[in-house]
């Protein structure tokens, strides 16, 4: 079961089907994600983008009745192998959510908490600083570390959530429409940040915003809903290619704004 895939991919899915009870939400997804690049997943509402993303670090486990067939491989190992502890998967593959969701604790605690529970033995202060610097928030909050995180603005909160994800030292960061609740300026800041982080991390982002996908990602996967309401991947490739010269009519229609 293990080691049957090429380890060069950050994540590889093979014939991935995702079910909610009897309903097949996503079908036949075979996708290879390039490491240390930004991959965006786009497509109309209800096509299973977020479902696929959440399956990459087993966040779907918490939805009753959800199950997965086929394989999702991280460094050659199927993360749905029954012997794998999903907690470990989530430490290695972090996630940033749609709405900023800082803990109702201090800014410092928000960043330090994940590292602490994961048995981090080195200096926490250094780690907090390092992560806040990486998430371009350090300058704004370095004197306010003990302030409640909820006192920050929405954009700052989202960057704090990114810093928080970095602190557990993941290799991949999943972002589920991270800018949908933010204003354009905060959105741009996050996009710049993603670009910087992609030097060190693999980033997979689900987005509704076509310009964002075009601007900020290296690769783009286009999903759509089939007649049986199951989402599937229609097109996948280098972003410029997908945007300028899509192979499928439906991709072109979607990108040019004719539906979705």
């Amino acid at each position, binding site marked *: 079961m293990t080691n049957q895939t090429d380890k060069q991919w950050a994540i590889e899915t093979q014939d991935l089907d995702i079910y909610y009870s009897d309903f097949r939400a996503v079908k036949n997804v075979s996708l290879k994600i390039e490491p240390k690049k930004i991959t965006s997943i786009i497509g109309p509402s209800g096509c299973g983008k977020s479902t696929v993303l959440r399956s990459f670090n087993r966040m779907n486990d918490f939805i009753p009745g959800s199950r997965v067939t086929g394989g999702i491989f*991280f*460094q*050659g190992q199927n993360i749905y*192998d029954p*012997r794998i502890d999903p907690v470990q998967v989530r430490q290695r593959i972090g996630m940033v959510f749609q709405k900023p969701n800082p803990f109702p604790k201090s800014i410092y605690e928000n960043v330090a908490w994940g590292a602490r529970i*994961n048995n981090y033995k080195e200096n926490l202060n250094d780690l907090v600083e390092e992560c806040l610097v990486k998430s371009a928030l350090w300058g704004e909050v370095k004197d306010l570390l003990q302030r409640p995180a909820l006192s920050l603005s929405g954009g700052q909160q989202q960057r704090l959530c990114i810093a928080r994800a970095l602190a557990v030292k993941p*290799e991949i960061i999943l972002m589920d429409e991270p800018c949908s609740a933010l204003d354009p300026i905060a959105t741009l800041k996050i996009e710049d940040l993603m670009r910087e982080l992609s030097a060190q991390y693999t980033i997979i982002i689900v987005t509704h915003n076509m310009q964002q996908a075009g601007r900020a990602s290296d690769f783009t996967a286009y999903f759509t809903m089939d007649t049986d309401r199951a989402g599937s991947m229609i097109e996948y490739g280098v972003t410029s290619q997908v945007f300028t010269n899509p192979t499928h009519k439906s991709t072109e229609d979607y990108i040019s704004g004719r539906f979705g």
Partner: protein
Amino acid sequence: MKNPLNLVSTTTYGRDLNLEQRQKKATIWKALFRLSTLVGVVALAILIISIVNQAFGLVAIEDTNDRNDFISTSIKEVTKTELIQLIETNLSTNRVRTLDREEPLVERSRHDLMALVETEVFKQRIVDSYSLFGSIFTPNTFRDQVAKKHPEAIVEFKSWFTPQFLQESMSKTPELAGIRTALFGSLFLILITISVAFPLGVSAAIYLEEYARQNTWLSRVIQTNIDNLAGVPSIIYGILGLTIFVRAFEPITSGRLFGYEGANGRTILAAGLTMALLILPILITNAQEAIRAVPNSLRQASYGLGATQWQTIWYHVLPYALPGILTGTILAISRALGETAPLIIVGAATYITKDPSGLFSNFTAIPIQIYNWTTRPQQEFRNIAAVAILVLMFMLLSMNAVAILWRNKIQNKR
């Protein structure tokens, strides 16, 4: 988790997450959380079982009058005519006449006559009783104990719950006592409580939800006050009832003002008014919630047609909120049905054989009887207390079931 598999790290920081220990801790705590929930469920089960345990079981019965003085053989061999003769010669003429009027002795079954002879001629009395589980698993312990203490007694199985228990009033003898008086007392009490509390409570709720939306100081004071009253211990309401309804309003609550010969203010009226004050905060809060659930569009539609505020409330808001209000009222009433402490203080009688006949009667209620019988030292009184508890719980559960089913039915309709 057997044989955990670690994700192999390709980077340099493959550090120890201490996962195995963390997951072990998680499993243990989850078991503890589950256990605490189960303790609640098990406690409920034990409580019910322990009450049923007292409501049925073996009893030792002894004759007060030696039966050998009346008959020479076993009672089973005595003929029907002889049984009638026994009754007619040994009971007072008045008693015989009463019995004959209920059903002529000659027309009664042999079994019926035998029971009459046992209870009225031989005057059988229960001298000892045993729990249900004891009776099932270790009946001989009880038999030995009875044989030692009451050699004359016979041991048989008894259900303390009998139709007579619901029909009879108080008695100093446990097996003859019933809760009819208390049952009527409780029902009458609830009737008074509801007829005072319901209109008051619903009116107050309408005021707070519909008229006081501007959030005046008065409505804020009333709201805070209701929230505070909801947490006042019931015994304090008892003290209030004692000073206000029993003493200060004595001319009214004793009925003297209306020409009744009431001895004092410790009447069912005073108790009902006290209970009404007690459930008022609960009732108001429940009614408020029901009224708050009425969609605003309904009110706007009504105002848009030129209706006044009261017309809007009366024709649209109240009909919509009524099921919720009634459900909340039933829940408040079931609280009143089980309350004991305020009744003790406003002076429910513990020994009374007359059914309540009017607002100014002395009275007793089921919880008062349970309390009274529980605190008696004799085991037999605890047996009938258990039966009274079963009756009370049956009433409460059926009231709640009605409320819940009703609510679900209405919710499904919408």
